């Protein structure tokens, strides 16, 4: 492990924050989704780093499961976005506000 773990973790934290900014700021549901993928990847990076740090392979397995769930999530999420687009002619998350109190 030539590069110390904190560097990897810092990269993970910055990526996570970038993804969050995207979720909060962007209006296109697609871009919001991509930002979420960025956040997931940041978490994965942290997992892999810790796995290496502890010398235990469990962290990598967790990444494996995150990948599975992310794939399913993308499939369902994109299907929902397509449906929303069909129903409302928009993918702008600010236009989808039926739950407004």
């Amino acid at each position, binding site marked *: 492990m030539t590069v110390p773990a904190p560097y990897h973790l810092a990269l993970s934290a910055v990526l996570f924050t970038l993804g*969050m900014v995207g979720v*909060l700021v962007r209006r296109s549901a697609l871009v919001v989704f991509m930002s979420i993928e960025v956040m997931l990847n940041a978490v994965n990076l942290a997992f892999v780093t810790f796995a290496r740090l502890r010398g235990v392979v469990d962290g990598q397995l967790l990444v494996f499961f995150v990948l599975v769930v992310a794939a399913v999530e993308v499939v369902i999420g994109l299907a929902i976005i397509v449906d929303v687009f069909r129903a409302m002619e928009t993918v702008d*998350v600010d236009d989808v506000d039926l739950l*407004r*109190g």
Partner: protein
Amino acid sequence: MLIPVLAVLVPTLPLAGWALNGLWGGRFTRRTVAIVACGAVAAAFAAAALLLWQIRLAPPPGRAPAGGPSWIVDLYSWIGAGSIQVPLRLLVDPLSVAMALVVGGVGLLIHVYSVGYMDGDPGCARYFAYLNLFMASMFWLVLAGNLAAMFIGWEGVGLCSYLLIAFWFTRPAAAAAGVKAFLVTRLGDVGFLLGIFVAFGVFGTTDFGVMTRDAGARLALGGGAATALALLLFAGAAGKSAQLPLYVWLPDAMEGPTPVSALIHAATMVTAGVYMIVRLHAVFLRAPAAMDLIAAVGAVTAIFAAAAALVEPDLKRVLAYSTISQLGYMFLAVGVGAFSAGIFHLTSHAFFKALLFLAAGAVMHALGGETDMRRMGGLARRLPRTTAAFAIGALALAGIPPLSGFFSKDLILSEAFRAQAWLWAVGVAAAGLTAVYILRAFALTFLGADLRGAEGTAHDPPPSMAAPMWILAGLTVAGGGLGWSFTHPGILERFLLTGLRAGAGPPARAGGAGEGTLVAASVLVAVAGIVVGWLVYVRRSLRGGVPALAGLLSHRFYIEEAYAVGVIGPVRALARVAAVADRTVTDAAVMGLARALGRSGQALRGLETGYLRHYAAFVLVGVLLILAYWVSR
């Protein structure tokens, strides 16, 4: 061997009929409904008859401590709590079998009669279901082996009484009468229930056999416990059997169909109070003061209701007051200790009063539901057979020998004379009034000018209604043979005596001259009453009367008005106070809570913007707080 099976069958067969007609009666044809209902009751009656045969035949499995032969059928343990054990228990002994036979026999006849009477009513299946439920409850009441089990039947017949009085529930008067009957008898039932509790306290059980056995040991003669128990039970009996001052529901109960009046409000349910007192005679004998009160209440009720019947314009209500009056005789009988005489009168009354009601029902049937005697008259020519049946019932009620009413009433009067002369005097006076009012009813209905003129299509009832009337007429004529003879106890009394007053031996009956004089006197009074009634209402030669008395009578001594002022008024006032309290305290609290929740909801509503990023930001803030906690720790 057969006895337990038969004893269980008697109440369950009508119950099965109720279940069949109640669940699927709407889909049955009218004919099927009638066959199911009548068949169930006929089978129950047959089972009761077999029961009679069996207990005459078989030796008792062991002499009960009370002396009489009795069989106990335990169904299952209903309440088991420490020392308090309440099994659902049936008690088969001469008294319960005799009563079950009366109930089953009259009930069967009235079921058959109802088939014709209710023909064409859309609620036919409901009617027969209720009627069968009533039969089941009444059989259960009669056969119950302890007070708690009896209470089930007691309330069951009360429920059926309510349901059947208010059978035509779309009529406000019928619905109100049902409610009134239910509430007034409930007043008495409170006493009955308290009496059951006292019995638990005194005996540790409410088993009739144990209570009869231990009454002498546990209850001091004339003691407080005995008196309290007797009075509380009598309160229940007075409510159920419409004695003063709880009689007010029975006249209104005539809103129900006439067969119901005949079955429930004349022959069976209203006599349950008498039956209960006879069943627990051992307890009542320990409380002479209560017995005196019962006798006095019975005598006063007898003469009061007879007087009220004198001015009543409605045919069925005349019969209702007559029933109250006759029930008064029964209470008079049991109050002076003549228990078997009470049961004898109960039986003969069941015959002739059911006959009178059925005849009245035939009149109503012919006249399209008319009950006001002022709009009847001259029906003897149109309904000759009904007139004959009513006449037989009326003569029995008036106490003309050799009809059954004469024998039973005379037996009560002679027992009363032996106890207290004033009770006898009141009873004889009431008997005179009885003769007058029933003659009045007969005259107004069947004699005189035909007020309905040419419009009349009135005719005698169809055979299905006529046959029960004739059978009852036959029983009315022959029923006297059940219980009367000059020198020794009659058949019924000897049969009952094996269970009643055991140990004391059959009472020595005073025969001879004293008895003959009493009989002569009561016959004389009855004949005099009929003559007076004839003069007043048929010949109309005896006129006059005291207006004040007539006013008093037509208001029934203002008892209803006293209830209105003394009971209903305060209850209404209390209800008004409660309503205000409900609005200002309870409702205010509930509504205030709801409003507070609503307002807080309105306030928080702004958080639900519907914008995805706001929700994400909330999550972020939450995570931030948790992180801050970790970092600062």
